[in-house]
C-alpha cells in the first residue's frame, strides 16, 4: 500500500544562544501541521547542521538564531550544505536578524527570514507552499 510522503524538517540552532523557546515553538507548529521535525538542541556547529540535514534527508532546514552571529554562521552553513550536495534543501531562518542583513542572506540562498513574533501559521504556510516536490 502506498505510504504518504511526509515533509521532513530540521530545526537547528547555530551559535551560542542559551535558550531555544522560539525554535521549539516553530518545531511544534510544523509538527502539528503534519511534518516530521528533527530537533537537535542548542549550540550546533555549521558542520553538525549540514551533516544532520544530510543524514536525516530533510526537505527543509529552519535556522533559529538570537545571538547576532548569523552573518558568520549562515554563509558557512549554506556552503556546507552545497558541498554535501544538498542545494535542493529549502532553508529559512528566524530569530533576531536586522532588516539590513536580509538581502545578503537571501543572496546566499536563504529563502525567507522571519522576524521575532512572526505568527507560526505564517511559517507553516510558507513551508507548505514553497516546498519543492521530492520523492
Amino acid at each position, binding site marked *: *500500500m*502506498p*505510504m*504518504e*510522503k*511526509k515533509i*521532513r524538517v530540521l530545526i537547528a540552532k547555530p551559535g551560542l544562544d542559551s535558550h531555544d523557546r522560539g525554535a521549539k515553538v516553530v*518545531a*511544534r507548529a*510544523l*509538527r*502539528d*501541521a*503534519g*511534518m*516530521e*521535525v*528533527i*530537533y*537537535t*538542541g542548542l549550540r*550546533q*556547529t555549521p*558542520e*553538525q547542521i549540514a*551533516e*544532520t540535514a*544530510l*543524514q*536525516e*534527508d530533510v526537505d527543509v532546514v529552519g535556522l533559529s538564531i538570537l545571538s547576532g552571529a548569523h552573518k558568520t554562521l549562515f554563509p558557512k552553513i549554506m556552503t556546507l550544505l552545497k558541498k*554535501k*550536495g*544538498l*542545494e*535542493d534543501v529549502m532553508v529559512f531562518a528566524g530569530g533576531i536578524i536586522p532588516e539590513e542583513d536580509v538581502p545578503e542572506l537571501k543572496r546566499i540562498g536563504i529563502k525567507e527570514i522571519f522576524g521575532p513574533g512572526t505568527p507560526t501559521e505564517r511559517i507553516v504556510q510558507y513551508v507548505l507552499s514553497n516546498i519543492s516536490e*521530492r*520523492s
Partner: protein
Amino acid sequence: MPLANVEELVKGILTGDRRMIARAISVAENNPLEAQRLIAAVYPRTGRAHVVGLTGAGGVGKSTLAEKIIHEYRRRDKTVGVVAVDPTSPFTGGAFLGDRIRMQELTGDEGVFIRSMATRNYVGGIAKATRNAVRILDAAGKDVVLVEAVGAGQSEVEIVKVAHTVVVMHAPGLGNEIQAIKAGIMEIADIFVVNKADRENAAKTATDIQGILQLGGKEGGWKVPVLKTIALTGEGVAELVDKIGEHRQFLQSGGGTEREAMRIETELVEAVKDKVAEAVFFGLRKREKFQELLKKIIDREIDPASAADELLRKMGID
C-alpha cells in the same frame, strides 16, 4: 539534485556514501515498490552487522545511553549506525523527533550514521521501515546497528523482530516492576539495564528485577544479566558493551539459530499478508463482483465475512 535511481542508491549504499544511504532510507519509508527492489539488491550483503535494540519507558535514558554506547564502540574501532524511533501523532500525522539531541556530539564522526524515524502509526514501538533502514546500514558496512525504540513500554515488543540483542532499560522510581513483566517487555530482554544508577534505590530495583527474571528463566541457556548504568557519565557502559558482545557470541555459537529462523518466518508471513492486502486494495476494489457484494452487504443480503469468502473463492484462494 535529480533523484537517484535504485541502481545508484544501491551502488551508493555499498560504497558507504552517506548521502545515498540517507536517500535510500527515505525510499524505504516512502516508496514500497522501489524499496523492495533496493532491498532485494542489497540483501545478499546484509547479515554482517550486529543489531542491538534499546527499549524502555519514555525518559528512562535510552538516547543518553545510546550516545555512550556508540562512543564505546568507536573506542573499540567499530562503526555504528543508529535508527532512533519516535512516535507519530495519530491526530496530525506529524512527529517531533528529538532523540538526536543527546547524540549530536557524534554527528560529524564519519564512522557513525544516525537517522531519526517516525513510527507513522506502525504499532509495536518501531516503524514499518525500521527493519529496512537497519538493512541499509548493515549493507553500508556498519559493524553495529543500534535501534532506539519508542519509549512507551506497554506492548512495544516489535524490536525483537529487528534486533539480535535486545536491551531493556528501567530506572529506579519509574514504577512497578511487576507491571513491566505483565506488559511482556521483560520477556524480550536479552540484557536488562537499570539506568540512573546514581539515584537512590537503584540497587534495590536491580535486585527486584533479578528476582523476577529468575521466575521466568529464558530458554536456550542465555542467562539474562541485570546491569547498572549511569548514562549521564557513562558508568557501566563498557560492561554493557562487553555483555552485548557475549550475547552475540552466544547467538553465533548456535544459541540464535532458532530465533533467527522464527524472525525470518514472521517476516515472510508478514510480507505475504502485505501483498495480499495490496492485491485486495488495488485489484479487488476494481472488480465488478466486489461492487456487487458491497451492495448486497448494504442491502443485508449477505454478511461481510461470507462476502469475503466468496471473493477469495473467486480469486482462487480458499
